């Protein structure tokens, strides 16, 4: 049942097209809504068990011979994510019912992709087997690709979908490499078993490589620097998709991955530096560029990037706890708690902000912040929701964002004083970056809400006459906004029920006691809204608010600074340059240069390669040897024949007219027949004579039919390369022949044929008996070859499309 639950959305998707086609009066979304609601209920039943530290495991054997199975592993972390996915999923479906028009939109596509995505996400967070985790991971990429390009008639949607696909799939593939390395080192694909082996894994030689590869997957999916560039372009998706995938769930798959692998990789310094460093950089970068955006969803996209960076940085800091003695008494244990806490908070306020952006778009017809303003009195409910969520995002009380931001500052303050890994030198820089980023977060939060809802109403600029959204559309964001406030007042209840089990999953060693069976409930962390006047966090917050407010009021003056950055100097330009300039154009140029369609050049490449490989091997293996032992004696008339053969060959080579070349070839053929006579092969000589005669006749026939144009006597132009390649091949054949002749390993089996040709087969001519008796099958198929050649020739000559038919066919 537990494994099946993952697939329920996918199974439900089968019915969507039928419902969409046959029940046109009811919006398809209402049927879809049942699925996430049922799942929320189902996962809620696990809460009490997981709270007490009992993980729930269920598995379904998929490929037993390869040891691959679908395992649904529910511990604190997985359960929290599962609840987020299904919970926010339900709200998003509810919102989409009012957002998407049932008569104008292709709803069945939308809901199939959405349900597919839900299965993929549930699979990612519950998989214990790394291969199935990867499988679901790629399914999220694919369904996200489909959802972004939902309005596939638009160029921008297709561009955004392709970009996100390229980046996330590239990261996913690297991650698969990391998984395989890790599994080879640990001997198992199960993450739980790898966690248990973590202390031994650190010393493996490929440990850091596996770590970096897995981080590639996490960073591309979670839009970390510099891979965040796909996220702003993914805003072309319908807003429910942006709210669901690009704020609450999919982008957190990377966060989940980092959290899940922290117990394995935390022992490495590289992990701590990469996760913390990249996280902080992303936080800083995202918040800085969010203020530059003029599109509502653009602001939110950069804000998502920035907040994901914050969570990532906290997860990096939580890994430090593994290096500290008596970590349970330091502040680092807060880091994981703060990360998970902020993850929940971000899902609530960002989800609701996206929905508000969608409402504004829906009711005014534009998302351009320069055209918006003064909507406060027209859309009071939306404004309230937006205000609550924005203030939470800015980190102000009494909203949940305040609590997690305080904890973030606490963690960064502690980092500054940390002794290991040179954090004491660089830590202060990290703190400064964190504070600046928080200031900018404050600015863009205000920018988002006040530039949209206050100020002057520019009714003439708006494509539609603005009015308040229907109440159904507002239900989902209102629920989320309510959560924003509620979480502020009961943080410790949330902590007890959801966060501590998740923290226990991230930092299990911290709370490991060999004698006591520890449970998540025993983690002694409480969230305090008030730290007292002496706490530095408070003064930092005050400082952030003051500077942020100052910057916001003077926004018009310094926003122009962003224009200093030339449009060409951006990561998007770099991406375009790589995709279009480097990859596309270079590849086209290379194939144009190498594959220009001339058969002679291809043959030249092939012959040169054969030559190089064979002669190279011969000398590399020191296989060349020459011995005269066992060679037959040389007779004078043989030498004469050889001279004739060489002369005939030379004639074909240097012949200026074709007829000379053909006669030369004939001469060679007859000489070969004479060779056969000399070397005691009468049957061969007969066949060769007859066939050479027919061949030459055929050549002459063709020559005769070559009309005027062909009679222009062609002298083959001498080319050095051509000569070099042909001499190389000739030398290669000679060398191989000499070596093969000089080192015979076993004797021939011909004695058997000689002995039994009469007694068993009743014949005297050994060659003929071999052909029709010992090895008659060869002859059968050689006859077939001749038959096919004959029929082919007949068909080529007889079956012709007349000119008229040909033109018809080509049309």
């Amino acid at each position, binding site marked *: 049942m537990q494994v099946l639950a993952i697939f329920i959305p996918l199974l439900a998707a089968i019915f969507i097209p039928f419902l969409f086609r046959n029940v046109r009066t009811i919006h398809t979304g209402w049927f879809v809504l049942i699925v996430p609601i049922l799942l929320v209920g189902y996962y809620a039943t696990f809460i009490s068990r997981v709270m007490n530290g009992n993980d729930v495991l269920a598995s379904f054997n998929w490929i037993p011979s390869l040891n691959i199975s679908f395992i649904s592993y529910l511990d604190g972390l997985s359960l929290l994510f599962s609840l987020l996915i299904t919970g926010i999923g339900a709200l998003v479906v509810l919102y989409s019912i009012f957002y998407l028009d049932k008569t104008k939109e292709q709803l069945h596509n939308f809901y199939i992709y959405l349900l597919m995505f839900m299965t993929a996400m549930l699979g990612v967070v519950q998989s214990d087997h790394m291969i199935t985790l990867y499988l679901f991971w790629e399914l999220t990429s694919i369904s996200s690709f489909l959802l972004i390009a939902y309005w596939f008639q638009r160029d921008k949607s297709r561009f955004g979908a392709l970009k996100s696909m390229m980046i996330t799939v590239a990261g996913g593939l690297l991650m698969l490499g990391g998984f395989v390395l890790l599994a080879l080192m640990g001997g198992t694909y199960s993450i739980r078993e790898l966690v248990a082996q973590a202390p031994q894994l650190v010393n493996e030689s490929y440990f850091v490589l596996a770590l970096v590869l897995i981080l590639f997957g996490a960073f591309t999916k979670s839009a970390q620097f510099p891979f965040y560039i796909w996220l702003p372009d993914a805003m072309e998706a319908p807003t429910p998709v942006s709210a669901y995938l690009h704020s609450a769930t999919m982008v957190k798959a990377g966060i989940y991955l980092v959290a899940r692998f922290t117990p394995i990789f935390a022992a490495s310094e590289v992990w701590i530096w990469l996760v913390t460093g990249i996280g902080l950089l992303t936080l800083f970068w995202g918040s800085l560029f969010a203020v530059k955006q003029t599109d509502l969803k653009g602001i939110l996209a950069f804000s998502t990037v920035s907040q994901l960076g914050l969570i990532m940085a906290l997860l990096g800091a939580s890994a430090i706890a593994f290096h500290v003695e008596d970590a349970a008494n330091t502040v680092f244990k807060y880091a994981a708690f703060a990360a998970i806490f902020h993850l929940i908070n971000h899902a609530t306020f960002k989800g609701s902000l996206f929905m508000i952006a969608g409402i504004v778009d829906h009711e005014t017809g534009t998302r351009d912040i320069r055209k918006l303003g003064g909507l406060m009195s027209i859309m009071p409910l939306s404004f309230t929701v937006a205000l609550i969520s924005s203030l939470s995002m800015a980190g102000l009380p009494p909203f949940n964002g305040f609590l997690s931001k305080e904890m973030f500052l606490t963690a960064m303050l502690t980092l500054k004083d940390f002794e290991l890994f040179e954090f004491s030198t660089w830590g202060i820089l990290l703190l400064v970056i964190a504070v600046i980023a928080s200031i900018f977060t404050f600015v863009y939060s205000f920018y988002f809400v006040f530039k949209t809802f206050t100020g002057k109403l520019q009714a003439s600029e708006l494509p539609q006459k603005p009015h308040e959204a229907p109440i159904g559309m507002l239900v989902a964001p209102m629920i989320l906004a309510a959560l924003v406030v509620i979480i502020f007042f009961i943080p410790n209840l949330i902590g007890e029920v959801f966060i501590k089990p998740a923290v226990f999953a991230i930092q299990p060693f911290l709370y490991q006691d060999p004698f006591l069976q520890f449970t998540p409930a025993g983690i002694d962390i409480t969230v305090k809204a008030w730290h007292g006047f002496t706490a530095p966090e408070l003064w930092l917050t005050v400082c952030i608010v003051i500077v942020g407010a100052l910057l916001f009021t003077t926004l018009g003056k310094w926003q122009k600074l962003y224009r200093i950055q030339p449009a060409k100097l951006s990561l998007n330009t770099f991406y375009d340059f790589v995709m279009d300039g480097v990859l596309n154009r270079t590849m086209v140029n290379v194939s144009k240069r190498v594959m220009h369609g001339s058969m002679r050049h291809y043959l030249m490449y092939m012959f040169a390669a054969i030559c190089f490989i064979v002669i190279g091997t011969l000398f590399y293996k020191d296989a060349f040897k020459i011995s005269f032992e066992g060679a037959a004696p040389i007779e004078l008339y043989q030498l004469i024949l050889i001279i004739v053969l060489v002369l005939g060959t*030379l004639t074909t080579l240097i012949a200026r007219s*074709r007829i000379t*070349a*053909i006669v030369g070839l004939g001469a060679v053929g007859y000489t070969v027949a004479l060779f056969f006579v000399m070397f005691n092969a009468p049957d061969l000589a007969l066949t060769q004579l007859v066939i050479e005669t027919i061949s030459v006749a055929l*050549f002459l026939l063709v020559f005769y039919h070559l009309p005027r144009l062909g009679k222009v006597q062609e002298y083959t132009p001498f080319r050095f390369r051509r000569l070099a390649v042909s*001499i190389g091949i*000739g030398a290669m054949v000679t060398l191989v022949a000499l070596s093969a002749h000089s080192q015979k390993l076993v004797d021939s089996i011909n004695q058997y044929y000689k002995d039994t040709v009469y007694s068993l087969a009743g014949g*005297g001519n050994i060659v003929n008996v071999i052909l029709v008796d010992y090895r008659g099958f060869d*002859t059968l198929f050689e006859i077939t070859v001749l038959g096919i050649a004959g029929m082919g020739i007949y068909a080529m000559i007889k079956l012709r499309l007349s000119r008229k038919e040909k033109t018809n066919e080509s049309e």
Partner: protein
Amino acid sequence: MEIVMAFVCGFLFMAAIYLILSRSLLRIIIGTGLLSHGAHLLILTMGGLGGTAPPVLAEGVTDFADPIPQALILTAIVIAFGVTAFILVLAYRAYQELQTDDTTAMKGSGIDD
């Protein structure tokens, strides 16, 4: 003798490859003809050129030439002939349709190298 024949085969291969790399279809086919001659002689040489009598039972003869390579070559000659005949007619038909026997011109662009 085998040593000398190795050089002869090498020479035939060289000439064949040189012709195959030319522009005219007819020369290419002549090249394949030389290539099959070279290959046949090579098989015979590698089987050993010893033996004083053809591989036919006769009174008092024990030193036969090796019959196995001969059987192989016989098969190869026939197959090479079938293929040569086929490509010759193919070249003839290609000429009829395209009015050229220059492989570069058949490509369409007329530009070589």
